[in-house]
C-alpha cells in the first residue's frame, strides 16, 4: 500500500500543516463502551481494576 503521508515524513520539510492534516485524518468517533452485562461475583475485594494479573478485567 502506498501511503501518501510517508512522502511528507521522509522529506525534509514536514510542517505544521502536514502534521495537522495527518492527525485530523485519524480523528474518528469511537464506539461507546457498552455496559458490561456479565455479573462478576467479586470474592476478591482487593482485586485491582486495571491489573495485568488474572482478574475479572485481565488479559490473561
Amino acid at each position: 500500500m502506498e501511503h501518501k503521508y510517508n512522502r511528507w515524513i521522509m522529506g525534509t520539510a514536514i510542517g505544521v500543516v502536514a502534521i495537522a492534516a495527518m492527525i485530523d485524518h485519524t480523528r474518528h468517533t469511537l464506539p461507546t463502551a457498552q455496559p458490561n452485562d456479565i455479573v462478576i461475583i467479586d470474592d476478591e475485594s482487593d482485586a485491582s481494576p486495571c491489573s495485568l494479573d488474572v482478574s475479572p478485567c485481565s488479559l490473561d
Partner: protein
Amino acid sequence: MQSGLSSPSKQYAINILEALSIFADTQSNLVLDVLEGQTPHENEKFPTGELNFAGSGWRGFYHCHAAADKNPEEHGHFHLFVCCGEEQWTHVAALSIDNQGQPRSWFTVNQWVTGANWLSANKTLLLLDDIHVPAESGLTEQFLLSMLGLYHDDLSELLFERDRRLTQINAGANMDVTLKNRSVYVLSSQLIVLQERLVQSVRT
C-alpha cells in the same frame, strides 16, 4: 522506523508520524486498531492477547471504565507496564484517549489500581531510558513506545509528582496502607497537545 536522526525526540516523533500516516491512510487510529472492529464493553481489555511490544519488556492494554466513573472527555486509556525483573511488572503511566481516538493526557495511579510491583520514581525512570522500538512492533505498539520516549521528561515529572503526592497523603503513616487506599486513585496528570510536540520535535 527511522534511525540515525539528530535527536532521540526527533526519532520518536518520526516513528509516531509514521504510524499516524498509516492510520490516516487506513481511516484508523490507536483505539480502532486495538478494537479490531469490536464494540468495547466497560472494563474489557484490548487488544485480545494484550500489547506485548514484540517482547521488548513492555506490556499494556486499553480499556474503558464505566461512564459514571470517568471523565466524559475520555473514551478510555492505555495502561503501560515495564518489566522490572523476571515476570515482574511495574505500572509507568496511563495514556488517556479522547472520544475521537486522540491522546489527551498522561496520568499516574495509586498502586491498588494496577496491582503490579511498586517502584519509586527514580527506579522506574531507570527503566525508561533508551526506549527501543522493535521493528516487529505493531502500529499501536510503535506509537505507544515512541510516545513514552517522546514524553520521557514529562513522565519523569509525573512520576516524581506521583511520589510527592503519595508522601503528602501518607503523612508519615504506613505507606502500604496508603498504596491500598481506594479513595486515592489518580496521583498526577498532564494534558497533551501532541501536534505541538511533534512539530517541536521534528524541528530539532
